[in-house]
């Protein structure tokens, strides 16, 4: 342990014994182990697709509900969490467009306090775009289909922002 001073102020610097290294040793992770780990994503991809389909359906239902009940805070939080989960997991399973659309929706919701009809159109548009990606297995950048989906959601968001 050492004492220090930063800008005339004291602090302690502690270097605890590296118990983790003592147990696992040196040499980094085995390359074969990393390859084995990559296969875990393949084995869980189908389960993710099922969950994503369910999340997309919940997003669409939530958008319809919020149109009639715009002040329902719990439902709004649900919309945010669904998009947050989709953005967090899509890319892991080879669907970076799911991550992109989920992220766009989260950022749009972060930037707006009002859940008006325009906002709910964005929720529905993002849900539809994610549904196409999952149902048609649009992996990677999605080629021409991917470009069309990106363009569709970008235009919907720009219109809602009045750009």
């Amino acid at each position: 342990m050492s004492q220090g001073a930063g800008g005339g102020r004291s602090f302690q610097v502690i270097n605890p014994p590296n118990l983790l290294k003592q147990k696992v040793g040196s040499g980094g992770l085995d390359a074969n182990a990393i390859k084995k780990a990559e296969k875990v994503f393949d084995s869980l991809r189908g389960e993710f697709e099922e969950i994503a389909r369910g999340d997309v359906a919940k997003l669409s239902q939530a958008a319809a509900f919020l149109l009639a009940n715009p002040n329902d805070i719990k439902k709004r939080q649900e919309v945010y969490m669904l998009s947050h989960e989709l953005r967090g997991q899509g890319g892991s399973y080879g669907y970076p467009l799911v991550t992109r659309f989920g992220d766009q929706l989260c950022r749009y919701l972060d930037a707006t306090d009002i859940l008006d009809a325009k906002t709910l159109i964005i929720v529905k548009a993002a849900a539809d775009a994610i549904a196409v990606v999952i149902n048609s297995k649009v992996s990677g950048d999605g080629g021409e289909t991917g470009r069309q989906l990106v363009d569709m959601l970008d235009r919907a968001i720009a219109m809602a922002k009045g750009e």
Partner: protein
Amino acid sequence: MPYQLSKIKVLVIEDNAHMRKLLKGLLDAIGVREIVECSEGAAAYQAIKQNPVDFALIDWETYPVSGLEFVRKVRTEPDSPNPFLPIIMVTGHTERERVTRARDVGVTEFLAKPISAQSLSQRIEEIVDRPRPYIRTKSYFGPCRRRKRGGTYIGVERRTPT
């Protein structure tokens, strides 16, 4: 020789069952044999008091007690079983304000979603081979938050008298 991960025990805190399954599968694939699973921070804190672990992979938003609150308890509660526990936060929240908040309670490393086998292995190598020193000031205890600034700190001075 590569790491002998069969010798360690890892805590996973994650409320999303699919994500928990994924993290557990990845840890198992790289050789970790003992994994303690919890869906929220309070149960996890009790679990590590009974059953010490070597590092933790945690989600931020768990209910009723968050992963962030778990970190605060591990670092600062008098009955903490290991204030020096390496903690990797797995998060989709990469906004600067969020990252700063997590750093300020004592998160060791971040693993940004979407995760990959490569990104997980890199974070594990960070905590094994490049551990951060711990800093204690009047207002903070946890891993040094300055390591990636190349040794010359130019931000606001936060270290206060102990």
